């Protein structure tokens, strides 16, 4: 297979088949927390996409160019979390300067991107899958962000309608959201086995 096919397949697989939210349970906290309104969800998705692309690329570079050469794999987790925290700080400063209204509406959730499992999880999975090509790492990180955005937007759309539905009293709030997420996962299982 030539490089383009591999990249394309990798992208489709991480968006649909190995979607981080549906199959790896990563990034569940913002997925349940910020998915109340569709515009917020979309903004959150974009911020996460940016951070995940940046940190996925940077951690791959650091891992391959510095840590593996110097034999410092033990410090991998500490380095990864530092890179992610730095990237989030960058996004925060950029948003505060250029999009103050968006910055206000995110509130506490923006610094919490640092502790979004999807981002650290993706960096670890890139390491685990032994991706040894920078381009592939970039495409996978970007695809993971897009997959997250898609998942959170679908969820927000459903939840906006769920407000009008008659839900049993004890299932109101978080429980029904989790059950909805379960059914969504079931739907996405239909993609399993499409590639590889």
């Amino acid at each position, binding site marked *: 297979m030539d490089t383009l096919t591999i990249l394309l397949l990798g992208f489709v697989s991480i968006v649909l088949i190995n979607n981080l939210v549906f199959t790896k349970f990563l990034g569940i*906290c913002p997925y349940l927390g910020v998915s109340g309104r569709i515009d917020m969800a979309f903004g959150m998705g974009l911020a996460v996409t940016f951070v995940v692309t940046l940190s996925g690329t940077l951690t791959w570079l650091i891992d391959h160019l510095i840590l593996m050469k110097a034999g410092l794999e033990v410090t991998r*987790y500490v380095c990864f*979390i530092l890179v992610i925290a730095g990237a989030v700080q960058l996004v925060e400063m950029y948003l505060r300067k250029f999009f103050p209204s968006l910055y206000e509406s995110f509130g506490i959730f923006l610094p919490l991107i640092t502790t979004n499992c999807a981002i650290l999880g993706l960096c670890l999975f890139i390491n685990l899958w032994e991706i040894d090509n920078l381009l592939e790492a970039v495409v996978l990180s970007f695809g993971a962000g897009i997959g997250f955005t898609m998942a959170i937007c679908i969820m927000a759309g459903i939840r906006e309608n769920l407000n009008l539905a008659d839900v049993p009293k*004890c*299932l109101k709030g978080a*429980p029904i959201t*989790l*059950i909805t997420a379960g059914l969504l996962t*079931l739907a996405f299982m239909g993609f399993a086995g499409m590639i590889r």
Partner: protein
Amino acid sequence: MASESRNTAVLGQTFITGLWKENPVFRLLLGMCPTLAVTAAVKPALTMGCSVIFVLLCSNIVVSLMRKLLKPHLRILMFTLTISTFVTICDLFLRAFVPEMSERLGPYVPLIIVNCIIICRAEACASKNNLIVSIVDAIGMGLGFTMTLCVLAAVRELLATGKIFELSVMPQAFVPWAAMSMPVGAFITLGLMLGLVNTITKKKA
């Protein structure tokens, strides 16, 4: 003497709070990723719970000791660095002594770093209280988390394979529900359990 017994009562209260009233999974909805990901069977769930207790305890101790040195804007960074150090220790330990569990848990061990429970306790408890309160709080919260993981894992393992702790308990005629060991089962079981907990607490009140 009186103040001493009151102190013990407060400590006991802190401990119980973590187990039920502020149970991290059922009541605060924190740390959902590992809760859903490792609960396909009881054994990995127990391993995960123990690792979380270890990391939570160590990070609460360190954060509590350095609480006077913390700068507000560098707080979160200090917490995550402390936590990631202990998670590295834990990961190396698991890899050396229980390699098959370490392989099964895979990236979810390093993902303890971003487990919201640990950062939440560092922020809400350890950075404000003294050493002893922080230790008790860490053990209570950690046990509450482990307990929840094990209950969820027991239900899922029982329905998915008819076994608990890899021992068969169901009659021969039982047809395993393969779906319970997949992501779907995780989400729906946890959703129904949360509903159950809501019902119980409403009746009490």
